[in-house]
Every structure is written in structure tokens, then in C-alpha cells.
């Protein structure tokens, strides 16, 4: 019944609009131009609308930077400062170009709006001009890119030292596991073919290096110590995305990928930073009013997280792991409390 009424209403609305347009057409003065080609009046109006559009467009860009820049996640790794500097320089450069060029484009749309009988300028080419606006981008972009490449090689060429913590991150539909290399600082061999029962990660039980490996469901990292992640996937492509640490690397089944960084801000410190206190307070205000949340979900406390960033299946949107960055002492204490792989398999 409701459907029928809706159809009738829609039909009546359609008829109304049809009749109104008909009346509008009939009411047009006879001498009006109905060629559907832009005339002086149209050019005037549309030209002015370009000016209005400039206001809207620049307003939108300004609003976005003003209100939405604050969401840019704070950096918490050694290379995040470098990353952020490169990002902001690039952003400044492109916004500089954007602001000037968009204005010129839309201003010309207004300034040169057509008038019947006015002459346009027959100006077909100018090689010098072409050269100028070829060479300036070449120089500017080369400088930017070379700067970027220095950062890239610094970030990607990880030099393993005695200090480096080597950690495996294991991905599967739809969770993460961490495997620390333990006292011998070497990860035991592993392959999906060894997966059986309690040996969820497929670690090779006969490999002596594997005995002291520690498998956990949370990632704890000691602050200011370089960590080198080795990524392994059980099933499909996943991606380990650590936004606060400016780090990301695909996790590929059949291959071990790697990425390294040095966390420089502990979870506690970032939680107490002005930025995070404000943000969390704001979030908890929002959550307070959310009827879909249970009472224990309403107060959020910030934790670093790892999230999956390559489409991996139905629960791709909820494949996350908590990350805790703590002092060396706190980390040692925590890891000493974890079970080694040897202990785990001995129990079985």
C-alpha cells in the first residue's frame, strides 16, 4: 500500500514539474533567443559565476586546511620528522602553484567572457614561454624528487646492528601475530607447511633458533631502539600500516618483506601530549552520545595500532593489533613474562 502511494506521489510530482515547465516555456517573450547557443547575457552571467566559484573554491580549500589539517597523525618514529618535513614542503609547493593557477584560470573565465563583435587575439604559440614553463617545473620537481630519494634510501636501507630488534609480523585473515626472535636474536625458520595445532605460525620445531622465539598477540617495542620487521602472510595479501610511525609494507604470501623504524615516543608520552589529550577528549564526547556503544566502550584511551591496509577479505576493516611503545625496562619485564615457542610446544 505504501509503495502504491509513493508511486502515485512520484507520478503527481512528475506531472507537476512537467506542467510548470510548460507554463514557463509558454510565458517566455516571443523575441527571446532560443538558439541554445550562449549569447551576451549568458556570457555575462556565466562569467560572473566564475567569480562566485572562485570564492567557493578558495573557501573550501581554506576550510579544509583550517579545520581538517588537525587530523594529521602525530609522528612517533625517528624518520617521521624527515617525512613530515618533505610532506609539508611538497604540500606548500603544490598549494602555491594551485592558488595562483586556479585563480588565473577562473579569472580569465570571467575577464574574457564573450561579447558579440569583440575580437579575440590570434596568438598561436610562443616557444620561449613553452620553454620557461617546461624548465621551471623540471628544476623544481628535480630538487623535490632528489630530496625525496635521499629520504627514501635512508628509510629503506636498514642497517642491522647489534641493537636492532628483529621481529616477525605474521598476518592472516583477519588478525596479526608477533614473533620475537628471542635471546639468540634470530628468528626460527617458518613456513605454512609446518602449521599444525598449537603451532599456528608454522614455525619449524626442529630449528634450534626457534626455541626461544616468543609469539604474542600484541606488539611491544622498546623506545629509541631500531626495530626491523619481517613480514609474512599466511593466506592473501595484507599490508602492515603503522601511520604514527610513517611506515607501511605489504605482507605477501610466498615472500618475506621487511621494513624498519625506530619508535621515539612511548605510548604513555603520546597519550599525555597536548594533541592527544584534546583529541581523545573530543572522541569521548562523541562516544558519550553514541547509542550503539556499550558502557565499557564509551571511554577511549589512546593506544598505537597496526592496521591492515590491503584489501584482504570480509573483515579487512577490522584487522588491527595494539602496539605499545615503552621504556627498555618495561619492555624487558613484559617480554620475560611471555612464553617461548619451546615452552609452548613442550606443553603440547
Amino acid at each position, binding site marked *: 500500500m505504501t509503495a502504491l502511494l509513493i508511486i502515485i506521489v512520484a507520478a503527481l510530482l512528475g506531472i507537476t514539474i512537467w506542467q510548470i515547465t510548460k507554463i514557463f516555456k509558454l510565458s517566455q517573450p516571443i523575441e527571446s533567443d532560443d538558439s541554445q547557443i550562449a549569447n551576451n547575457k549568458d*556570457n555575462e552571467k556565466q562569467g560572473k559565476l566564475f567569480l562566485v566559484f572562485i570564492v567557493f573554491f578558495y573557501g573550501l580549500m581554506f576550510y579544509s586546511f583550517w579545520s581538517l589539517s588537525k587530523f594529521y597523525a602525530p609522528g612517533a618514529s625517528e624518520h617521521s620528522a624527515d617525512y613530515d618535513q*618533505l610532506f609539508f614542503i611538497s604540500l606548500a609547493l603544490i598549494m602555491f602553484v594551485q592558488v595562483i593557477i586556479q585563480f588565473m584560470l577562473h579569472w580569465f573565465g570571467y575577464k574574457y567572457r564573450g561579447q558579440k563583435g569583440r575580437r579575440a587575439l590570434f596568438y598561436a604559440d610562443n616557444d620561449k614561454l613553452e620553454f620557461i614553463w617546461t624548465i621551471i617545473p623540471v628544476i623544481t620537481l628535480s630538487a623535490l624528487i632528489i630530496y625525496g630519494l635521499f629520504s627514501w634510501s635512508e628509510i629503506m636501507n636498514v642497517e642491522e646492528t647489534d641493537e636492532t630488534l628483529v621481529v616477525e609480523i605474521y598476518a592472516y585473515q583477519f588478525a596479526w601475530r608477533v614473533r620475537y626472535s628471542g635471546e639468540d636474536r634470530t628468528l626460527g625458520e617458518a613456513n605454512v607447511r609446518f602449521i599444525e595445532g598449537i603451532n599456528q605460525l608454522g614455525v619449524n620445531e626442529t630449528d634450534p633458533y626457534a626455541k626461544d622465539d616468543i609469539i604474542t598477540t600484541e606488539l611491544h617495542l622498546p623506545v629509541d631502539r631500531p626495530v626491523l620487521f619481517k613480514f609474512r602472510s599466511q593466506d592473501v595479501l595484507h*599490508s602492515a600500516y603503522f601511520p604514527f610511525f610513517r611506515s607501511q609494507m605489504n605482507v605477501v604470501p610466498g615472500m618475506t618483506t621487511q621494513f624498519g623504524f625506530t619508535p621515539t615516543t612511548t605510548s604513555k608520552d603520546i597519550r599525555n601530549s597536548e594533541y592527544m589529550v584534546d583529541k581523545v577528549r573530543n572522541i569521548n564526547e562523541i562516544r558519550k552520545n553514541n547509542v550503539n556503544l556499550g558502557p565499557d566502550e564509551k571511554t577511549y584511551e589512546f593506544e598505537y595500532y597496526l592496521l591492515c591496509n590491503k584489501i584482504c*577479505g570480509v573483515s579487512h576493516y577490522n584487522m588491527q593489533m595494539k602496539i605499545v611503545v615503552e621504556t627498555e625496562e618495561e619492555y624487558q619485564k613484559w617480554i620475560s613474562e611471555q612464553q617461548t615457542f619451546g615452552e609452548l610446544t613442550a606443553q603440547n
Partner: protein
Amino acid sequence: MSVAAQPLANDHVHEEGHHEPSFIEKYIFSTDHKMIAKQYLITGLSMGFIGIAMSMLMRLQLAWPNETFWIYEVLLGRFGEDGVMDPSIYLALSTIHGTIMIFYVLTAGLSGTFSNLLIPLQIGARDMASGFMNMLSYWLFFISCVIIVSSFFVEAGPASAGWTVYPPLSALPQAIGGSGLGMTLWLIAITIFVASSLLGSLNYIVTVLNLRTQGMTMTRLPLTIWAFFVTAIIGVVSFPVLLAAALLLLMDRSFGTSFFLSDIYIQGEVLSYQGGSPVLYEHLFWFLGHPEVYIVLLPALGITSEILATNSRKPIFGYRAMIASILAIAFLSTVVWGHHMFVSGMNPFLGSVFTFTTLLIAIPSGVKAFNFITTLWKGNLQLNPAMLFAIGLVSTFITGGLTGIILGDSTLDINVHDTYFVIAHFHLVMGIVGVYGLLAGIYHWFPKMFGRMMNKNLGYVHFWITAVGAYGIFFPMHFIGMAGLPRRYYKFTEFPYFDDLANTNILISVFAFVTAGAQLFFVYNFIHSIFYGKKAEQNPWKSNTLEWTTPVKNIHGNWPGEIPKVYRWSYDYSKLNKEETDYVITGQDFVPQNIPLQEHEEEMDD
């Protein structure tokens, strides 16, 4: 390259005792390029309708993830039970939206329509080199559309691994439902699509090279033709690689090979695949994938050149530089694909190489943008709806292109890869630019296709709402990407950290609904004008190109008598005579290509 085509010895139009074509020959299995262009257009627009509807469902879900909407149940059936969208269908929507928009709307709908319509008309040919292959190209495209749409109704859902369909997710039905029959249908549809595209591209290339009329040297061709010609070449080079990737994926799925798969444990068992690599698939896919975006872009830019020049009453600025940049973009597009793979696990050295080549491709793109703006300078701008869309295209091309500089830098890509920053970038620079090109082309060549004019006031309303909406959707989106919001997430509520982004998501969705709604002005205008639009004159836009020398009513063979000969390039707008006292032709600010050199006219060396 500058040799004029030889006039055909027997320039036959109706030599074989021409018979009245039957309805089926004229409208269904037509070999006339103009009818095929219209077929591509209608089919492309229909697929666009479906693609937009899918994105509306996604935006609804993202804006209000915890609300129930009866529309989910109506449109998604059991995947929208009780008004809640199933997460798997969200991924399917995302996949099919991308597939439809990129391939079916912006490749076939844009290239297919305008290359077919304009190549023979603008070069002065009776039809394409092979009308039959052209007809096949369209019908293969149509079959491909039917197959991809039919995949919506499959039990486990259509393909759901993203439009990029990376294996192993796309290879294993046990990894996600859509990777069963849905993915098989996707592969079949795309294979047929590639065949269609190749047939079309070969036709375009051969026609441009061989069937230009007398006097139409390569450097007198309108930029539309250069764009379509080079696009076709890119297509021929890169689409076969997609076909290879699809074939290898098909073999992994169905014949036990291990091109892309190795060491997989899923649903409680170790699979037998060994030795393959998903990264190989990524290389093969993106070897097409990157040129593909230029296959979308170049026709739009070519159309813009034409519309800007005609409506500015000025030559396109820097014709030679424009050709050079089209060629540079085409060549460079084949060596930048790795910028989609910076964090794929490939050797970081490759990352450096691709960053460098990606930088290079920014240069010719910039040159084109500057040339467009200089074309407007000191023009006498006729602000028809087509012109507005062309100017809007330049604007979004610049905005989207500039953010590409951030994404092309391997270091910066680390933190924005696969986030909403990327989605904002490609929607502006490919989606909106492509759609504006399509719309501008439709408004501009509607009189040629249908012999009638579209309503300009509806066109104006359509443009301004769309322009405001497009930026409203995608400009703020960059910032939620910078905040670390990933792509292809069914909802963000599992991360309390993202709760304060919800309002921005709602803003984006609202802009999206309004913009989608505004397209209805266009749909009404388009359909109504085909039947009731004001009858068009022969050359309503006072344009120089040859298509406007044909009669208003389309005839088979295009020109009733001889094909016009060409004496000049297509950009003699507002050209003055030698004494600079008046235009070359008194009282007329344009000189069509088929008008010989006039008295008191200076010949410009082109």
C-alpha cells in the same frame, strides 16, 4: 608524417547499388561509425548510471554505518537484509564501481564514443577503415557489459577483491565469496572487453594513418584526432598485458598453476601452490593500469583542446607543444607503473627509478595545463555548457595532478598509500576529468550526433552543481587520507581513533548525493533534446573542423558529394588578414579547414 593522403581513386559512396538499410542494419548491427558512436554513448551512460548508484550505496554506508536503510534491502537483496549492508557486498560494490567506471564508462564510453564519431568526420573520411570490425568492437563491448552486470546476480556475489583484483584474494574462492563465479565472470567480461578495445584501437590507428582527405597532413589534424590516435596506440601496447595477467590468473584459479600463488594456508589446509608471486601480478596489472589512466585522460584533454579553442575564438595555444606533450605522456606512461607498487615489497631501488620517471611525466601534463590557460587569455569566451565543462576539466586536472606529485614521491607514498588520499587524487584527476570530458563532448557534439541542440539553461545548472559538488566531495577527502584512513574499509567504527572523522565523511556523502542528483538534469536534458530539442543549424559553434561541413541530418558516407579538401590547420580563429584590418573572411571570425588560402591572407607555416 606530413604526406597528404592520396585521394581515393574510386571515392565510392553508393557504388554497390545502395539499398535502404533495414531497421536492424541501421540501428542494431550498423557499420556506420556515427551510429556506433551513439551506441557506445548510450551504453556507456547506462553503465555510468549503475556505477554512480553503487557509489551512492557506498557513501551511504560510510556516512551512517550504524543506521539501517531499507534501500539496502531493496537493491542488495539478501546482502542488505534488515537494512544492514553485508561487509562482503561493500567490497563487491567497491570492486564493480571501479571496474565499471574505469573500463566501461571512461574507456569505452569516452574513447568509443568520440573516436568513432570524430575520427572519420574530422580527418575527412567516409567511415572507418573497417566498418565491420567497428561493429564487432561495439557488440563485444555490449556482451562484456551484459556479463559484468550478470555477475551481480551470482550466489556468492560479484568479484570483490578491488577493481585491481590482486591474487591471492582474487584467485581463491575460499578467501572471499566474490572470488568464485563472480570473479570468473569478471575475467571473462574483461577478456571480451580487451578484445573489443583492441579491435577499436586498431581501426582508429589505421583510419587516421590511411584515410585522411587531401591536404590533411598529420600536422593539420585537430588535437582531438592526435589524442585519439595516440590513445589507441597506448591501448594496443598495454591492454594485451592485462589480458596476459587475466589469463595467468585464470590458469591459477582453474588449472592448478602457480604464477601468482605460493605458500598459502587457508580454511584449515595448506594449498599446493608453490613458487608464484602476487607481486608479478601487480607488475603485469599496473603495466596496463597506468597507461589505462592516460587512455582515459588523453581523449578528455583532446576534447578540451577542441572545445576551448572553438569557444575562445582563438587557436589552441602551442599546437606543436600539445602534440609533443601527448607523445611524451604516451611514452612515459609505459615506464611509471611501479609508482603503484612502492610498498609492494619490491626492491627499494625500483622505487627510486619509478619516482624519477613519475616526476618526468608531470612535465608534459603541466605544459598542457599552461597551454589551456593561455588559450583562454585574451579570448572572446563563448561560455556554452561545453565550454564550462572544459574549463572545469582544466581546473580539476590541475588540482588532481598536483596531488600526484605527493603520491609519486616514494617516501611520501609510505604513509598515504591505499588511504583516502589516493582515492581523492584519482577521482579528481581521472574520474572528474574523464566525466567532464565526456559531458563536454556530449554538449558540444550533440548537434552533430542528433541534429538538435541541448537546452543550455539545464546545462548551466548541471555544470555548476556538479562543479561545486565534485570539489566538495573530493577536496576534503585528501585530509581524511592524510589522517591515515584506509581504503576499502566497510566502516571506520572499529577504530575509536577515527570517530572524529565521521562528520567529514558525512559532509562528503552529502555532497555526493547532491552531485549525483544533479546528473538527473543532464539525463532529462539529453533524452528530451534527442526528440524535442531545437533543430540545429549546420555549424552552431562556428567551428573550423570538418565535421561541421556535413549536413545536419547524418548520412551514410558523411558528405553528399565529394569529401572536402583541406588547406589549413583547424585553429584559424580570429585570424586577421595581412593588413590586420579585418578577419581573413569579412565579418566572420573563423576560417574552416576546407577554405583555401584567401587573398590578403598570410600563410602560416604549420
